[in-house]
């Protein structure tokens, strides 16, 4: 199983950041995907290469500020669980943690890389140039 984890501290309160991260239909606003489509507990995301992933939303817990999803019905990906946590660190700071566990294990690496881009975009969005 390939396991990666990325995290970033953001100088913004957890509820504000969760307002975006906890809206799975808005993924393309911060993660390097080109489009997002939702139907119930299903989500489809499209990458710049044209690849589309079908996903099941497993957890959307606004109290815990945890989002979990699985890539499903994929000819290559046999196992996947993605987890995004937004955890307060005081009143005005939080840490966003993006974890991926998957088979084939090597695919966890580019997803981890994309998560790094996404977290940086969140930080830029909520901190601006400060």
């Amino acid at each position, binding site marked *: 199983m*390939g*396991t990666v984890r990325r995290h970033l501290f953001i100088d913004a309160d957890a509820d504000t950041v969760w307002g975006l991260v906890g809206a799975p239909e808005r993924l393309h606003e911060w993660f390097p*995907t080109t489009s997002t489509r939702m139907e119930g507990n299903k989500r489809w995301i499209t*990458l*710049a290469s044209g690849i589309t992933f079908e996903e099941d939303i497993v957890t959307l817990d606004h109290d815990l500020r945890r989002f979990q999803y699985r890539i499903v019905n994929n000819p290559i990906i046999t196992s996947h669980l993605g987890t995004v946590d937004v955890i307060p660190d005081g009143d005005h700071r939080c840490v966003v943690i993006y974890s991926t566990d998957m088979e084939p*294990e*090597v695919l966890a*690496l*580019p997803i981890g890389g*994309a998560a790094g881009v996404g977290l940086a975009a969140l930080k830029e969005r909520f901190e601006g140039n400060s």
Partner: protein
Amino acid sequence: MGRKILFITTDQQRFDALGCNGGIYARTPNIDALAANGIVFDRAHPQNVVCMPSRSTMLTGQHVSTHGVWMNGVPLPESAPSIARTLHDVGYSTALIGKAHFEPLLDPFLRFTENRLGAHRVTAEPGHDPHRGFDHMELATHGAAGQLHYSQWLREHHPTEIGGYYNVLDRELQVNAEGGGDTGAPQVKANPIPREWYHTDWVAERTIAWLDSLPNDRDWFCWMSFPDPHHPWDPPASELHRVRWQDVDLPAGYIADANERERVIDDKLRHWRGWYDGTFVSNYEAPAKWVPSTLTPDQVREVNAFTHVENELIDEAIGRVLAAVSSRGWSQDLDVVYTTDHGEFQGDFGLLFKGPYHVDSLMRLPLIWRPAPRLGMKPARVGRPVGLVSLASTFAHIAGLDQPSYAEAPRLPVDDADADSLGHERVLTEWDSVLFGKIVHLRTIHRDGWTCTAALDGTMNSFGEGELYDVTADPLQHVNRWDDPSVRALRDELLADLWSNLPQQQTPLRTMDAPV
């Protein structure tokens, strides 16, 4: 007009691949002619023995600890220094044609420019500065998969040939262990593709096309980068007659007796035996499901034969490009630098591929600098140690520029006396791999005929362990003298020199965004 620069690289080529370096199978007359009229380096090492870190060193003139591309899959930042940008800024036209690999190849998000250029079928991104200083990038890698230009060209013009290439990855996206050829050797396949559509010839043809686009009075820097002879070993089947594997002797570095082979491996750092037995695959560059101890003598011979064929095709492609340069009247002003990014076991120690193994199989590289003939410089063989880290300063020197401020090593010397005056005393090589909990860190110095490798703490090795080879007396590095009391003082002196000359590693290490 100034001097033009043709920088030719291969991928994963051994020192002894070429006739000028004692190779006896592949006929390499064009490269040998460059060597006969130029400077041949007998002890050139890379600063890392896999592609992305080594190529990043070539471009930046920096050791791995400085540029930070510590393993394949770690992208070189777009803001990193680039000798191509330096040359571009003084008026050179610049191109990279063939394999770049400063950025990960496995890139489903199309985050990286190299892949976007290929996917969008352009040679530069409109509205952007030249990527890394190259006006023109037309890219290829090992085979038909992926987004790069050669793959797109093959898909568009010769789609039926795609399946003729060996599948580099298996269904689990691991480097494929499937055997082929006559012997079942991993990553071997006779490729039915016509020779003129194979990537070696494509790289040469695209290079000639770019040169044809330039005006006569333009100074230019062209990095012509062949993906071969890196695995998979799948040259055009029509060319296999050149070197029949049945006619190839086992290489000197292959230890036929299994007990002796394992004794030699057991005398090295522990990760060697772990890989040999298939229990410790520390890096993505070799098939995870292949067990090296199963390698047969005939498989070694077949891999070597296919490699020799690929090397011949490269030499012939170089000949065509040099003829095209000549037809433009540029020959007298042309500097040619030829090298590779790292070596290949090709059967040494009963192993194939590469990894954290700092011996000559992977570290001793072909390197030739044929200065512009109009200068009338004397041919030479240089025995002093040099590194690919000197290439950027060399290109600057050819262009009449001082050593760039970002470059960490002086230019290549023109003979041993020049090497001494420039301070070419030692060459350093680093290894860092962290792959899902399997960790190897090595630091190596070569000087005064000795290669000394210190392990840092990792999964199988601990700081204080290492390898020490007298490369003159033991050219195959079969005897590890790390614990030999008679050379303890020498070892400690080498280690002190290593630690005092190695740049401080940039920490935290940058993230690994792909396996390769």
